[in-house]
């Protein structure tokens, strides 16, 4: 058991290391360098030289990578080209804001998705399932920004309940953030629920058809007990991974939603960075987001290890 945990942790570290390789050298592989990207059309020989001097872009890539990695480990993400400030400073409170958004969406989405998924799975092909599945399909097929736009249309424009766009700065206290958060949360919740729900439904259907559920029925166990004691624990096991995957998707997908609502979070910073072609900023954000993804997956892995008796014990069949 201990070895299993150690192994997983080790793998996570290795993966983060590889991500750093991809992030750094992937960018290196693209034509030009941070300077040409940033200056773009405005590049002249002098301005390129000046920028490169300032940001130490003249040193060979391997040396830069090692320095970058070293800085990373110490918590220094480098400096942004466009703002001339350390990346960590720019991220600042935005991280907190995005975290609040993501956490809130998750807290809503996961229980709703599980409950709806279980209901849909149990009433397969009957009207509760059909309604739920239909809504899920529609949510899945509309891109986040479309859902956001529709929500804005209904709630901000027509009903005027919430503001369409956030007008407060990134370091505002959370209480000020709250009314601006509602529509983004609803948008994200929609998308997350749709994905988790489909898989919970499939798992539920599979489990209800399994031999051991049939056996429980033939033992005379009443249906409610079967659902809660025999079916759900088994249906939930693969769901943990799905939930982790969806949360991790959130890490990336939140960017568009933040852009639409002009919400001061990491996602919108990322988009700005890309628009500005600010490579160090982009790299810094990329590695942070990816690391978060890995950590979430690790937690999910360990959780399923803990909850699945088959994985916990030494001997398997």
């Amino acid at each position: 058991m201990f070895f299993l945990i150690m192994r997983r942790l080790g793998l996570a570290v290795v993966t983060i290391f590889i991500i750093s390789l991809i992030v750094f050298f992937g960018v290196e592989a693209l034509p030009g360098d941070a300077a040409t990207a940033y200056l773009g059309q405005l590049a002249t020989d002098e301005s390129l030289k000046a920028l490169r001097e300032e940001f130490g872009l003249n040193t060979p890539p391997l040396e830069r990578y090692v320095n970058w990695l070293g800085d990373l480990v110490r918590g220094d993400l480098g400096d942004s080209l466009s703002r001339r400030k350390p990346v960590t400073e720019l991220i600042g409170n935005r991280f907190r804001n995005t975290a609040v958004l993501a956490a809130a969406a998750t807290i809503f989405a996961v229980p709703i998705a599980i409950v709806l998924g279980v209901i849909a799975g149990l009433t397969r092909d009957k009207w509760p399932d059909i309604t739920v599945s239909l809504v899920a399909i529609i949510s899945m097929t509309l891109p986040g920004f479309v859902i956001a736009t529709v929500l804005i249309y209904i709630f901000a424009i027509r009903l005027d309940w919430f503001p369409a766009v956030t007008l407060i700065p990134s370091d505002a206290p959370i209480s000020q953030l709250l009314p601006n958060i509602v529509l983004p949360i609803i948008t994200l919740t929609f998308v997350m629920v749709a994905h988790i729900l489909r898989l919970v439904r499939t798992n539920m259907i599979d489990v209800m058809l399994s031999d051991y559920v049939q056996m429980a029925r033939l033992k005379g166990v009443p249906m409610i007990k079967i659902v809660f004691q025999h079916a759900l624990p088994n249906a939930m096991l693969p769901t943990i991974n799905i939930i982790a995957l969806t949360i991790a998707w959130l890490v990336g997908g939140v960017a568009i939603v933040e852009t639409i609502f002009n919400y001061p979070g990491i996602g919108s910073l990322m988009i700005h960075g890309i628009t500005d072609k600010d490579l160090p900023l982009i790299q810094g954000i990329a590695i942070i987001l990816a690391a978060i993804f890995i950590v979430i997956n690790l937690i999910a892995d360990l959780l399923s290890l803990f909850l699945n008796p088959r994985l916990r014990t030494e001997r398997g069949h």
Partner: protein
Amino acid sequence: MNDIFVNIENLSIGYFNKRGMLIHVLKNVSLQIKPGETLGLVGESGCGKSTLGQAMMGYLRSGSRVLGGSIHFSGQDMFALSVRQLESIRGNKIALIPQNAGKSLTPTMRVGKQIIEAIQLNADISKDLAKRQMLDLLSKVRLPHPEVMSERYPHELSGGQQQRVVVAMALAGKPEMLILDEPTTGLDVTTQAHILELLRDIVTELGTAMMYISHDLGVIARVSHRVALMYAGEIVEDAPVTEIFRSPAHPYARGLLESIPRLTLAGIPNSMPGQPPIPGTLPGCSFAPRCSFATDICSSEPPEFDTISQAPHLVRCHHWKKVVTTDFSQELVRVYQAVEHKIEEDPAIELSDVEITYHRPGLIDRLSRTPTPTATVSDFTLTVRRGETLALVGESGSGKSTIVKTISGLLSAKSGCIRFAACDLMVKVDDRPMDLCRQVQLIFQNPDASLNPRHTVAEILDQPLKLYFPKMTRDERRERQIELLERVRLDGRYRLRYPGQMSGGEKQRVAIARAFAAEPEVVLCDEVTSALDVSVQAAVLDLLADLQKERNTTYIYIAHDLAVVRAIADRVVVLYQGRICEVGTVDEIYSPPYHPYTETLMGAVLVPDPDAKPKLLASDTPELSPPAQGCAFQRRCPKCIPNLCVTVTPPWQYAHGVDGYKIRCHIPLHELLVDQVN
């Protein structure tokens, strides 16, 4: 005087297929079971026995419906009950012991809890009392250390242990009737014997009625008071167990009993041509197309039940009177014909001191210096002669599959020497020259898995032809495919079929044809008949014998079924935990002196004779790995000499010369002989 406990009257069950056609599963089934009686329900795959068993619990697979008739259990109509009422009967009055115990236990719940659940459903008692009852049940099913066992999860138990847990669960509600659907599938011979004796003892003690569903005639003979034989959804004969085995009245019963390999009679039995029809599709008797007693009336009019004796013995046949005139036991002796073929002196495959292990030490193991576990197979020395059929016999863990996979090159041996003619077989198949690959072919157990479902038969047979005979043209290959199919007694039109459109026996024949397409010297058969229906096995064995005669092919045949081995083998190797116990001709092995393990195996085999009693000489505790020193069988051997057998590897004893019979045991041969002849 005895009330009728279960009364099934004219039950018909069917379902509508994708195209909207009505398919019968059961047709006009009538049966009665008395309290305390064990009914054996026998039939081959597709006859509907499982459906009948489930229907007894009021359970129908989704899509199936009752088309007519009824099931009355203790006076209640099972299909008229509400869901609540059914729930209260199930587990309480009537309990099911399913086929696959492992899959029927909820993986996330400890086994003790699942049994307690069954107890509390049927009796209003406190948790502590329920727990004590649960532990009692676990001891009753002879599981060691009940307290420890009850805390385990299903996947931590062996197959036999899981099956016992399921029996305990079924007994929890103190049911009046048990239904068992092939409960010993997937279990070893010795485990199966133990579980059957357990069941017999329990039902005798508790007075429970039992319906035991199986295709295995030996099991049915041991366990039943009465037997009902099913064919194509109907009951064709219903008789006391001794009567149906001694003098069967229905031609199908006769045919079936004549087609199973027997431990005591050498030779390949007859096989019944054709296959069962879909129930309800034929106007007359369902068995008529395959029956040697059939006349015109049989194809036009379905027969009714006739009473042969007051036992009661019922049979559904127009001509049963003709059938019972011939003496069955004499007929049996005539049926079994010994296989005759030439065996040459020169060796085909020689193995010496082969050691095979699955474990490969990783970096962490090397660092932590974990001791290497014992090899899966060790000390394997054997010479297989050209043209002979050598059987490798053993239970799970015996290493027989491992050895065959190593000979074919799928696995590599750790050390030792394997030769075929002048070539080295120690290399893996990727490194062997193509001609060597051609000479050694492998046929697998399950034709469902060994034929690619996306290829037609033509493509399946084409592969070896293209690989080994690249000079053949397309037309030549096509000709050859048709030839091969005819050789395995399949029509040339099968070329265009997909595996999903063929029966099990037909698929296995295609697998055989594929192996012989290479024109091999040696064919390795890994339990090739185990997954087939009883009546089809004989045909496949016969086919293999036939093919062997043509080119003097050498067979290495893996089997766990000692009766099948008796039918076809020339020599036999008995394996336990990857070590050889004894080697000899089939006559030598099947008569004393036996190695203690062979004796245990022989004792546990269930023969289709109601008067035979199995001898349970050793417990069925599973072995995780071979012992590090001494005799492989030391932990379970009833004749184990303490200190000696545990520490010293038993020496070889030869009966006559190094090439003849040999056995590996500390006990001298003459002592074993004296002991076992009594």
